[in-house]
Structures are given as structure tokens and as C-alpha cells.
């Protein structure tokens, strides 16, 4: 190596920049990192930085660039060119500088300075792998409850300590903004701020923001106009579709390191995995066409699992509960069967018959069957929830007089149900448990109804739903922790929150999407839970729900297996569709049972082959 003959004496008022800054973007919207970006150095002194750059050349060309920082010289000039101060303080400063030195490329320096956390081995190993092997761009896809947030926090902390990250953005669902902000502060001593207004983007170095806010103006322009040393996206399965604004804003952001965090990198289609990985390393899986021909056999089945696993291992880390190393408390699952009252059973039968008739008719006329599917699932949840949909369906202008009359009759029948067997059983159960309980339902109408009924029974209850603003969600969580016995949550509301202080879950109704069931349980059965977790699934005898619980609990054994696997095995949406077709197209119970049995066998067969695809440690 030799010193370049021409040493650049260029002075810049800001710090390091990528050489590519001189390139002009071909169009607006996507811009290379700004030339006047601040240096990504956490430990620099708050001074105007003067940078001298010179290039060193190896025998094969430029090997590294060489930067001499002269803040100290500037500061000395300000002090009258004479160093004045006490030696004792000089030595204290020297010791302080020693604390912020990273003596090795490989070791995690953050482990010695985590005031509120003792990470698990798999979390340390993941952070190390992300930094050393994946070079800071990774998909963290651990199964639910293994502490992906901790892993992302470790990576952020390490980069902050090493001075490789100064400006970091964490994009999360609105409900998790305060939780992330708090955890970064308490566990990692990272001063993170929750984004509040359009000035937040430039005011704070470590910012936690809702992805939905970020993609709206005026925030969008603000966030795109800056360089981010690290971008973390939590619940990154929301980026699965490259045509959505979520995906596009993450693609457009200028970022050095990128962590995508999700337990479910594939839900329905292998293209989702492709889209996520393309954000991290475009071209890692080739072009879409090349990916399809090399890796895709059918929508959810890879051609060669081993080859795909190898290709994604350069960008993905996935720890499984089964890998061991982490002791989880026991999980007890119980099905609670409820027998409907004659009036409720009459309503259920009438609604189901109506749905079967309508389903066939609508399919023939190629009309939407969505409202029927909703109604079928609601009637399993509660007659109150079904009543609301029956009311809405009556407003459909395409209804014939006969259909309208039938809907009115069903609505009237639902209104005249005198008591609610399932709700009464829940109230009894909550009293028996005599501890904090999370009660999950899919439907807001059921949620409201349960709230009313529990309150009537003098059980302190709060609700938690997707539509709440983040402050309210936080408040509800605190109320549940300190004041109330029951939290009634929908999955949309409960996504990502940590409720380890509770160990009792009641599924008032079951979603037909296995991943959402696991998301529910993951709220309590995760690292940090110290007690066994009890899960109770309500099923109503003689209804679809009974089949559902049997299928999910006994046939697929999803409550025993780690359901994080099922996203790959089943494909959540496909599973839902299969179930609906089974119920709607079967003529009698025997046929339903036969088709469900075939479905569960199919699932078990896929388990082994698909399991191989995404379960390797990276």
C-alpha cells in the first residue's frame, strides 16, 4: 500500500458519506444517501467536524479510505491554543474513552452494559450472527415468544455502542409504539422516543413510529428526506405484498442496516418471502421469474427445500422453541363444550341452513359469499354478533323479497333468544379461575356483549381492540394489570403486546387462521412467563365450532405443537378457505367429518416436508 499522491484536503462540515453521493438519482422519490448526513458516530464530541479524507491504494486498487478527524484541533484553537485542565480529569476521560472502545470486530460489547436485561443464549447468538454474518440486514423470524424484540434491541444497542448507528427508526404497529419505546429504555438504556409530530423525525436520534403514520403525509416526506443508519420493522409480515404502501415506503427509505421482525415470514404464498427478502438484499433470490423457476413448485411448496433454505440463510435467522435452550412453562389446553339452549340451537340451525342455501346460490351467480362466511363464523361466536350482521345484510339492494323476509325472520329469531349459554359459562369460569384472564374473541359485537355481561356480573373488565389509539391501549393494558380481572381482546388489538403477568387464556371463539391462534397464546406464553399457561377453547356442541376445536386441538394437535410451524405447513389463508369449502359444500355431518379428516391428514403429511424449508437456524 502507498499513500495516494494527491491527498484530498477537502473539508466538509458534516461527516462521512458514501462515495456514491455524487451520483444523481434517475428520478425523484428514491434518493441515494444525502451528502450532508451527520456522521454515524455515537461517541463524537458535539463540535463542528472537520474531515480530511485521503485514499489509500492497495496493489489491486483502492483498499480503504482514510479519514482524519480534527475536532480536537478546532477545540484547542477555541481554548487559545493551549491545553489547560487537570491531569486527574484527563485520566478519568481516558478511562471513559476506554469504555467505548470496541476491541474486536466479533465480540458483542453491549453484553457488559445492559442494565435491565440478561439475554438468553439464542438471543445473543442471533445478534452476533446478524452483525457478523448477515452484515446488519436480516429477517428475524423466531417463533412467537422467543424474544425477537430483544434480539433486535441487542443489535441496535451494539451498533449504537460501536458508533455504527446514530440515527435509528423503529416502525411498528401503533399499538406497540409505547411498548417498544419503554423496552428500549428499560432493558437497553437506549433513549428512544415515540414519534408524536412531524418535528419528531428530525429531533430524535432513536425514534419509534407507527408504520401507518409514517406512510402518510407530511410524515412520509420527512422520513424519506433523511438517512437512517438502522431501520427496524416489527410485525414485518405487513410488508409481504410489494404493491402496498407499507412495502414501498420501506423500500424507498434510505437505510444502512435493516432488520425485519416477524414470526410469520410466509403466510399464504412464497412470493411473500421473496418480497421480504428483496427488501433486505435485492437479488438474493434472483429476479421474480428466476425465483419462481428455481424454487417454487406450487404456491406454498418449494421445489427444493434445501436449496431454498440455503438461499435464505444468508438473510434470515429463525429460532424455534423445539431447538431447546429455552425453558418454557407448561401449556395446558382444555376444550370446554357448551350445549346450546333449544332457542339458541334453533337459531343456529336456521342460520346455517340459510347460509348453505345462499352459498350455493351465490356461487352459481358469482356473487360475493364473504358476508355468509362472516355470518357462519359469528353465529358460532354469539347470537348477538350474528344479529348485527343479519341487520347489515338486510340493507343489500340485490336481495329478493323472499331472501329479505327470511333474513328478517332470522333477525327476529336472534333477538328473541332469552339467554346466552356460552356467555353464562364464561362468567362461571372466570369466577372459578379467580385470577387474571384474557378472553379472546374475533368480533367486536361479541366483545361489547361480553363486556356488558361481565360488568353486569360485577367482574371488572376492560376491552382492548385494534381501533384504539396507542395511548388508550397502553392505558387499558395498565388497567388490566393493576385493576381489572378480565381483558377482552381481539387479535387485531392484541398483536405484539406482552401480558406475561397473566397465565389464563379463554378463546371464546376460535379464528380459523392457525397463526392468529398462536398470536393469541403468544401474548402470555412467552419468555418471562413464570407460571404454567392454561388455554381453554370454547366449543358449542353440534356446531361448526365443535369440528373446528376437534380439528385444531386433537387432529392437528396445534396447541401441543408449536404453531409457529403451521404458517409454513398450512398457509393460513388456504387453511381458512379449505375449512369454509368443507363446511359449505358438505351435505351432511358425515361428509364434513370425512373431509376434515382428509384435511388433517394432508396437514400432517406436509408437516415434515415443509418444516424443512424454513426451520433451519437461518
Amino acid at each position, binding site marked *: 500500500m502507498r499513500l495516494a499522491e494527491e491527498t484530498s484536503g477537502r473539508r466538509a462540515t458534516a461527516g462521512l458519506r458514501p462515495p456514491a*453521493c455524487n451520483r444523481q438519482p434517475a428520478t425523484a422519490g428514491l434518493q441515494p444517501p444525502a451528502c450532508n448526513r451527520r456522521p454515524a458516530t455515537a461517541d463524537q464530541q458535539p463540535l463542528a467536524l472537520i474531515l480530511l479524507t485521503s485514499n489509500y491504494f*492497495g496493489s489491486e486498487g483502492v483498499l480503504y479510505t482514510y479519514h482524519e478527524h480534527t475536532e480536537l484541533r478546532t477545540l484547542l484553537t477555541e481554548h487559545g491554543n493551549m491545553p489547560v485542565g487537570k491531569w486527574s480529569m484527563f485520566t478519568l476521560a481516558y478511562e471513559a474513552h476506554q469504555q467505548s472502545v470496541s476491541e474486536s470486530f466479533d465480540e458483542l460489547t453491549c453484553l457488559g452494559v445492559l442494565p435491565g436485561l440478561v439475554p438468553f443464549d439464542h438471543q445473543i447468538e442471533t445478534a452476533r450472527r446478524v452483525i457478523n454474518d448477515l452484515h446488519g440486514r436480516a429477517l428475524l423470524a423466531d417463533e412467537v415468544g422467543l424474544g425477537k424484540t430483544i434480539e433486535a434491541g441487542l443489535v441496535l444497542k451494539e451498533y449504537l455502542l460501536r458508533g455504527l448507528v446514530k440515527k435509528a427508526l423503529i416502525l411498528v404497529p401503533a399499538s406497540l409504539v409505547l411498548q417498544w419505546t419503554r423496552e428500549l429504555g428499560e432493558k437497553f438504556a437506549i433513549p428512544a422516543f415515540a414519534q408524536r409530530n412531524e418535528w419528531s423525525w428530525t429531533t430524535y436520534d432513536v425514534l419509534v413510529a407507527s408504520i401507518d403514520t409514517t406512510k402518510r403525509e407530511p410524515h412520509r416526506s420527512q422520513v424519506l428526506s433523511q438517512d437512517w443508519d438502522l431501520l427496524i420493522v416489527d410485525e414485518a409480515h405487513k410488508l409481504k405484498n410489494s404493491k402496498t404502501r407499507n412495502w414501498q415506503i420501506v423500500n424507498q427509505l434510505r437505510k*444502512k442496516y435493516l432488520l425485519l421482525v416477524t414470526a410469520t415470514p410466509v403466510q399464504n404464498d412464497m412470493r411473500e418471502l421473496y418480497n421480504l427478502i428483496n427488501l433486505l438484499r435485492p437479488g438474493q433470490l434472483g429476479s421474480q421469474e428466476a425465483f419462481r423457476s428455481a424454487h417454487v413448485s406450487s404456491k406454498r411448496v418449494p421445489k427444493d427445500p434445501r436449496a431454498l433454505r440455503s438461499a435464505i440463510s444468508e438473510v434470515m435467522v429463525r429460532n424455534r422453541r423445539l431447538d431447546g435452550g429455552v425453558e418454557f412453562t407448561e401449556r395446558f389446553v382444555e376444550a370446554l363444550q357448551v350445549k346450546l339452549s333449544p332457542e339458541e340451537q334453533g337459531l343456529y340451525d336456521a342460520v346455517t341452513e340459510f347460509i348453505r342455501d345462499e352459498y350455493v346460490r351465490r356461487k352459481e351467480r358469482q356473487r360475493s359469499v364473504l358476508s355468509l362466511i362472516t355470518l357462519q363464523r359469528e353465529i358460532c361466536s354469539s347470537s348477538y354478533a350474528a344479529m348485527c350482521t343479519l341487520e347489515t345484510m338486510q340493507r343489500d339492494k340485490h336481495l329478493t323479497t323472499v331472501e329479505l323476509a327470511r333474513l328478517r325472520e332470522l333477525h327476529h329469531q336472534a333477538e328473541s333468544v332469552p339467554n346466552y349459554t356460552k356467555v353464562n359459562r364464561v362468567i362461571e369460569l372466570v369466577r372459578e379461575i379467580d385470577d387474571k384472564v384474557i378472553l379472546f374473541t374475533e368480533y367486536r359485537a361479541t366483545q361489547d356483549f361480553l363486556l356488558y355481561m361481565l360488568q353486569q356480573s360485577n367482574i371488572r373488565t376492560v376491552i382492548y381492540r385494534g381501533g384504539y389509539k396507542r395511548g388508550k391501549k397502553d392505558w387499558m393494558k395498565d388497567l388490566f394489570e393493576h385493576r381489572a380481572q378480565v381483558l377482552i381482546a381481539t387479535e387485531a388489538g392484541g398483536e405484539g403486546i406482552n401480558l406475561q403477568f397473566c397465565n389464563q387464556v379463554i378463546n371464546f371463539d376460535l379464528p380459523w387462521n392457525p397463526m392468529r391462534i398462536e398470536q393469541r397464546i403468544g401474548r402470555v406464553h412467552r419468555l418471562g412467563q413464570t407460571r404454567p399457561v392454561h388455554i381453554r377453547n370454547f366449543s358449542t356442541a353440534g356446531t361448526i365450532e365443535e369440528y373446528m376445536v376437534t380439528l385444531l386441538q386433537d387432529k392437528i394437535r396445534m396447541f401441543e405443537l408449536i404453531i409457529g410451524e403451521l404458517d409454513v405447513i398450512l398457509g393460513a389463508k388456504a387453511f381458512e378457505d379449505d375449512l369454509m369449502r368443507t363446511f359449505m359444500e358438505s351435505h351432511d355431518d358425515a361428509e364434513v367429518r370425512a373431509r376434515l379428516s382428509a384435511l388433517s391428514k394432508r396437514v400432517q403429511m406436509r408437516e415434515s416436508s415443509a418444516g424443512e424449508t424454513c426451520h433451519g437456524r437461518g
Partner: protein
Amino acid sequence: MVEDEHSLFDYCERYFRHVGALQKPAPSDVLCVELPRDVDKELTDRPFYWMWVEAMNETPANTVLYLKFNPDSTDAEAPPESKPELVVPGCYRMLRLYASAKARGAFAAAYETGGVLFPYAVFVVKVSFVSDRRMDFLESYAIDLQTFQVYGDVIPELLNRALLDERPQHARLIATPIDMDKVFSLLLRCVRLDVEARDHQWAIDARRRLELELGRLDDYYTSLHEQTRVIDPQHILPHAAERELRIAEIVWRTEPKIEVRPLQMALVYLGAPPGPNATSALADM
């Protein structure tokens, strides 16, 4: 106290002593200190409070910190005006304390005791190898201001000598005009020579990785370009912009850089050189 706790306690005690904080009675494993206002400003981030205090000409009582280094230490003796605080590695208080020490200890003048003392410029320099990872070295140098002899790794030696903050009464200091630009320039030359002599396999690896990444991007966007040209010509421009952005990100992240950052400087008067190992003499530069 375990070693970590002990070293933190020791550091904090020395810091508070040197900044003139008043130490109050407390159990032996606890530090209870009353902070002067300038120190308080550095240790707690509350600029609006101080803005208000100064604008309103208020004279609030000094802040008292009650710092525990062991979770089991007692809070019973904490003064009512203070809130017991646990100090552990990496906690907010330690981060502020280190930052304050770094700012206050950037420069110094020091003296050995008695006799004829010769001037040396002592520097602490941080050298960082940066690509997508980073490694640092903290180096120290002393430059003899008369001969421009340069001595490396001097801090351990100087820490062993009892240096004084004040000029000793009976010492004779050798006066020398100091050209600071020349001293800094000499320092940077020496650092550069030392840096060059190190193993740079890390840079070779990073450069190779950079080339590989750029090659992969090139293949990807070329195939995308071909495809887009046929199917969807209006998307060619956005793809070109995206490609530029991705290239810039990769260069930004991966390109090997060496950063040299002088952090501290002291003018030290010594009776004898700070070590036998003069690394270079570049007085003629």
C-alpha cells in the same frame, strides 16, 4: 462489593471529587453527593428546567444524588430530597458521567515533581477500522517538543508517574515555543505510519464483499431492466433510481474506512522521557 461494583464506585467517587461535588455521609457502599450546578447540568438532561431557572432567576437547592452500586444497599439513609438510584454498567447515570468526564478531560497540563522538566505533548487517539463492522484501538503518543521524538503507548507509563495538576514550586521548566499545527501534523503522520503497519485483511474482506454485493445488484437490476423494458416500460426509471439507492446503501455500509480521531491532548512536563521506545523523529517534515 464485586469487582464491577467496586470499579464503578471508585470511578464515580474520583469523578465527584474532581468536579468539586460535596460528598455527604452515607453507608460505605453508597455515594451521596451534592452537585454543583454545572455538574448537575451535565449529569441530567433537563435543558428546559435550567432555561426556566435562569430566565426566572431562581435559586433552587442543589441536586443530591444517592447512588447505590449494589441492589441490596440500604435506602434508609437517603436524604429526603434525593431518590436512591442503582448504578450499573451501561445505566443512564454512568453514560452521562462518562460523557461529562470526556468533555472535561479533553485537555490537561501536568508536571512531574521537582528538577528540570521538559515539555511533551501527549495525545490519546482513537483509530477505528470501519466497514459494516467496526474495531477500535485507543493509542497514546507523546511528542518531545524540543526534539520532536515521538514515543508510543505512553499512557500506562505516565499513569505510573505521580503527575501533579499544579506546577511544583522548585521545578525548572524548559520553555519552548510550540507550533500546535506542526505538533498535530506530526502526530497524524505517526498515527498513519502505525496504522499502515497493521494487518488489513479486514479491509480486503470488506472490499471483496462490497464487490460481490455490487455484482449481485448489477445482475438483479439488469435482469429487471430487461424484463421491464418488454413488459412495463414506464417502470424503467423508478427501477433505475432504486438501483442507485441500493448501490449507495451498500457502499455506505460496506466500504472499508479508517477513522483517526485525536480525543485528548495534554501538555506534560517530565524529568525523563515517557519510555525508551521512540518510534520516529520527523522533525524535518
